[in-house]
């Protein structure tokens, strides 16, 4: 078990190296001579030739790509992701200052997704091929087809503009999180619902469920105590991945609701062609996403005793 965890954690190292290469290569796609761009963006007056040359020297921009990558990686490991062109603050500070807001919205959205998908998924499985099942299928289809960036405006239209219950955007008051969380959460609920339903159907066909029924347990106890507990195993593991997708999906939703997270930071950085911030976002979020899928993997092993013991010694 320990060995398995250790090896799985070590696989992060090459993956993170790969992500750093990706982030570095991508930043070289930006049009224009990097020294000139940087000189223009980091000085208030139009820079002269000497200033551009000074920046070229300071950042060693004449070196070959691998050398520049190595230097950049060395700095990145020490937390130096460069300076934002727009705010002239260190990129890492910008990301760190805004990440909690993104975390908050992703957690709220996950809560929405679970509250919708678990009860409905169980209901759809228990009432298979009856109307709750058909309704759940229609719901998941819609959830997968509606663009989040359209759903957001439908929700704003109804709940903020027509009913006036919730604020349109921003972060003022407790109600501000509701609409972005709903927008993000409902989309994610669709796939979780489908998974809960199929996992539940599989478990309900198992022998131990028949045994539980045979010993005279009520249907409620069978479903909620015996079946759901086992049906949740794959759901929990997918929840980790879903959370990563919520963090990623938050980009457009944050932008719509002017929510001050890393997502809206990315969109603004793209508008401002603030390349160091875009690069920092790829590196930072890549690390976060891979870490999340690692946690999801490990939680799967930890939750399911069958895997925990069967795979115990294996790496």
């Amino acid at each position, binding site marked *: 078990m320990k060995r398995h965890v250790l090896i799985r954690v070590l696989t992060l190292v090459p993956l993170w190296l790969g992500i750093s290469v990706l982030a570095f290569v991508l930043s070289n796609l930006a049009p224009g001579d990097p020294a000139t761009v940087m000189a223009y963006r980091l000085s208030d007056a139009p820079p002269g030739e000497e200033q551009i040359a000074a920046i070229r020297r300071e950042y060693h921009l004449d070196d070959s790509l691998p050398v520049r990558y190595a230097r950049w990686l060395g700095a990145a490991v020490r937390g130096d992701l460069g300076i934002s062109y727009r705010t002239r603050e260190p990129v890492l500070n910008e990301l760190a200052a805004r990440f909690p807001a993104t975390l908050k919205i992703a957690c709220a959205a996950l809560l929405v997704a679970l509250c919708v998908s678990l009860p409905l998924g169980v209901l759809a499985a228990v009432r298979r091929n009856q109307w709750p099942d058909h309704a759940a299928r229609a719901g998941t289809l*819609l959830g997968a*087809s509606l*663009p989040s960036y359209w759903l957001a405006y439908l929700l704003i239209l109804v709940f903020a503009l027509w009913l006036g219950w919730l604020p349109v955007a921003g972060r003022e008051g407790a109600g501000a999180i509701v609409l972005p969380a709903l927008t993000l959460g409902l989309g994610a609920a669709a796939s979780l619902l489908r998974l809960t339903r199929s996992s539940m159907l599989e478990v309900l066909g198992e022998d131990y469920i028949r045994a539980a029924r045979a010993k005279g347990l009520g249907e409620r106890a069978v479903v909620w105590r015996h079946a759901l507990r086992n049906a949740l195993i794959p759901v929990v593991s997918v929840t980790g991945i879903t959370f990563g997708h919520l963090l990623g999906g938050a*980009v457009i939703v944050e932008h719509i609701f002017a929510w001050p997270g890393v997502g809206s930071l990315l969109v603004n950085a793209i508008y401002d062609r603030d390349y160091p911030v875009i690069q920092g976002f790829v590196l930072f979020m890549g690390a976060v996403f891979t870490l999340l899928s690692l946690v999801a993997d490990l939680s799967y092993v930890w939750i399911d005793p069958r895997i925990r013991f069967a795979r115990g010694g294996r790496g």
Partner: protein
Amino acid sequence: MNGGRETLEGTRPRETFESAGHNAAMLSRLSSGRSDVLLRLMRDRSALAGLIVVALLVTLALAAPVVAPHDPAVQQPAARLAAPSATFPLGTDNLGRCLLSRLLYGSRVSLTAALAASLLALGLGVGVGAVSGYVGGWVDAALMRVVDLILAFPLLVLALAITGFLGVGMKSVLIGIVSVWWASYARIVRALVLSMRERPFVEAARSIGAGHARIVTRHVLPNVVAPVIVLATLEIGGLILAVSGLNFLGLGVRPPTPEWGAMLNDGRPFLRSAPQLMIYPGLLMSLAVLGFNLLGDGLRDALDPRL
């Protein structure tokens, strides 16, 4: 799932080939009779509904120059935000442009872009997947590490970042999306090719002296076509959402070109006074995605009824 994997060459029970992964099963179903597949698809009511929706939208998009009552870019300053009328069946937008015409031409742009992205990503994905699965070894390992790296990100986020580096324009949007989406195709095609590599007809081709290129293009890839079509259909919806999502952020087409996502973006300031500017393009987009999803689900079920 597959008990006989390690049986000796030549003595493999027939079922082994049938159960070498459900994708392979899907293939054998297909070769068992194409008419069956079509029949099953036609009997599946939701798939049929998807097919009709898709066919309708594609027809409207193709026929836009004939059907559209106005030029989608021409502004009628006197008729800003006009209500639906005989001249403007769905009214006009904030610049006095015919909303219906913009929707029709917008479908053309959005669907064409999604289709182009799909074909390009498929081409790249099938190429890489086939090489990876057929050649194996370190080539396979290296290519799959690249795939893993890309799939570690939510696809749209990485596409967005790449587009951000490239700058505004439909070309950047397509490059951003294609350079990410191919990875998911490559992984699946690799698995399919891997399941093909040891099948008897490939061994037969090899034994009569066919070269690798011939085996891959004439024997392996034709058998991968059916599942790849299913995959492509299932993914078109996601590509429509991606293309229009980046356009919604203002990174794609430039005004006055109409596109679903760009139209949503243009309608934002008028959500309260003229919600139809946002409702119609979103509705059309959702309908398109829903149609492709239903059709894709139906195709998958028709090819492999056991799923």
